[in-house]
């Protein structure tokens, strides 16, 4: 397993000699993502946002890989990549909107080359390969980074997508956030393959196992894979070995399937703590700086919530207007009907309480 700093924040690999600005950025995005995740959990418990999948514990995977990308690289995410999402330039309020059940959470800024979250597991993978083929055909020296979980590797679309990538030698970097669980299914029940990295052998390109809780290792491994991709040497599969410290989603109860010991063990390997220790050893981290970051993050989070909670109301048109470039006559009729129904509404249903969550 590729590692630069160990669980105790000690340098165990080659010193990458990254500049301080970058190291600070890494730390900032991890802290910001963690704090946003904390806050989202609270908002969910207060009923201010709906079900969402916490990201805590996986920040190094997301931030290390994300910072290795260029603005012109594209990202096809799954749904648990908050760190990458933020550092690529998507405002946090989009994430809140999304989990408030507001489709406008998906309107990614024009200059950000990220797709919105993919819910059906693995479906983004062949798409990421198609986009990379397009990039190559356009003679762009860029690459497509595609994220997915350990569970995703069992789906047909994973295999079909990676096989295409191998055949067409596309500029793809596949990052599997192996967080050890797919809801209640542990990694070793997901596949009998010893590692996920070795699955790349089936598609004829390299796979590498990386400590996903080591932001430096993730950064370097992704950087190298991106360089391979951009210089025409084809795709790479990175297995980021990490852990989901919280529930699968806020509707999930992980005590039903995993032990406290396991959780404790992984808490000891917290990606942020370990990187803090490392930065401290370099004289970069200080209590004051931490405070500064936290204040900034709190402020940004607060503003994001405000923005998300004060967005203008949706209109009936919004249900229909984006189905096609032009609305067809059937949809126009349906919109007219809806408007009429709302305008003449007589009976307000007090939506019965909905019990039973969903993942």
């Amino acid at each position, binding site marked *: 397993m590729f590692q630069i700093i160990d669980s105790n924040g000690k340098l165990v690999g080659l010193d990458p000699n990254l500049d301080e600005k970058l190291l600070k950025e890494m730390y900032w995005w991890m802290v910001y993502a963690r704090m946003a995740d904390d806050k989202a959990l609270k908002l969910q418990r207060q009923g201010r946002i*709906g079900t969402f999948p916490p990201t805590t514990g996986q920040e190094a995977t997301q931030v290390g890989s994300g910072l290795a990308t260029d603005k012109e690289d594209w990202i096809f995410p799954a749904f648990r990549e908050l760190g990458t999402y933020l550092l690529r330039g998507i405002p946090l309020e989009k994430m809140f909107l999304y989990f408030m059940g507001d489709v406008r959470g998906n309107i990614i800024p024009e200059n950000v080359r990220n797709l919105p979250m993919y819910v059906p597991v693995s479906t983004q993978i062949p798409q990421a390969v198609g986009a990379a083929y397009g990039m190559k055909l356009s003679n762009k020296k860029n690459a497509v980074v595609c994220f997915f979980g350990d569970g995703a590797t069992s789906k047909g679309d994973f295999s079909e997508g990676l096989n295409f990538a191998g055949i067409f030698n596309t500029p793809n970097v596949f990052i599997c956030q192996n967080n050890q669980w797919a*809801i209640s299914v542990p990694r070793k029940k997901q596949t009998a393959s010893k590692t996920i990295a070795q699955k790349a052998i089936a598609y004829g390109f390299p796979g590498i196992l990386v400590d996903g809780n080591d932001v430096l290792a993730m950064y370097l491994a992704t950087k190298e894979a991106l360089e391979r991709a951009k210089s025409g040497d084809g795709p790479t599969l990175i297995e980021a070995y990490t852990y989901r410290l919280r529930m699968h989603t806020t509707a999930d109860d992980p005590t*039903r399937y995993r032990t406290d010991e396991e959780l404790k063990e992984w808490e000891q390997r917290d990606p942020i703590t370990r990187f803090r220790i490392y930065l401290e050893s370099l004289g970069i981290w200080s209590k004051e700086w931490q405070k500064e970051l936290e204040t900034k993050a709190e402020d940004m989070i607060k503003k994001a919530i405000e923005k998300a909670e004060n967005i203008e109301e949706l209109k009936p048109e919004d249900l229909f207007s984006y189905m096609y470039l032009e609305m067809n006559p059937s949809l126009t009729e349906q919109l007219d009907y809806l408007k009429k129904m709302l305008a003449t509404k007589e009976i307000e249903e007090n939506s019965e309480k909905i019990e039973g969550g969903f*993942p």
Partner: protein
Amino acid sequence: MNMVEAINNALHNEMKSDDKVLIIGEDVGKDGGVFRVTDGLIQEFGEDRVIDSPLAESGIVGFAIGLALYGFKPIAEIQFMGFLWPCLDQLSSHASRIRNRTWGRYTVPLVVRAPYGGGVRALEHHAESFESILAHIPGLKVVIPSNPYDAKGLLISSIRDPDPVVFLEPKRIYRGFKEEVPEEAYIEEIGKAKVLVEGDDLTLVGWGSMIPKILKARELMLEKGIKAEVIDIRSISPYDYHTVHKSVEKTGRIVVVQEAPRTLGFASEIISRINDNEMLNLKAPAFRVTGFDVPFPYYKMEEWAMPDLDRIIKASRQVLKW
């Protein structure tokens, strides 16, 4: 019991009485299913018969078909109907055809369960209703209960059925209400619609989570003296058009309520059949209250997307006006 409990109880009954019955799906074991429908079963029947599968829906159904061919009675759970798309190949190319393809030499006594429908403030892909797509596939049966009692009886029938059944569970009402449900096994026949309340003025038909809404609409209309007959379709394949047509013969007016998108939802078939056989008995055009031709929306807009009391009553008024 509520519907989750009734389904759990049915599974328990059948697993206990027939050791050929087994369950496979994502998180159905230790976790007891994300809705807890399979809660406790792995503890009682072991992980050989309550199988936590890898995340692969086509694999799950293909695997279950293999089990069925070998003589087992597998029940495959698909976590949400929105993730049933990848199974359609296995279902339509094989499950639905193997008996016909081999003139009965091989058969597929399979049940595929999936929660479906909206109204639970879910994420995208967690609120789909595309039951009519399944009903267009010859060789499948498609069963949809609307209450705990039927859920148990219909599920037991589905498990015992010698042919493949897709059993769709309206998750909106999974825990919506409780009913008396016997502990012991009983069956409700597949392919029979049920007249829930009789009435002479018009016929209201629906299935799944639309039924409680329809019943409430009937109540409100009754206050104005209108007696609607309410029919729960229960199985859209095979479809019991006799029961619907008998009612239309009497009332001459019909409103079909469907959560799914409008175009080619099952209501279209109901209305076409009425056209085939009962047009002369209609006193007003049949009316469809349906979802819209859009993907089920993110939850801020979900109330707009679904048929509600108001729309059902307005539709009823409209057909009564004629």
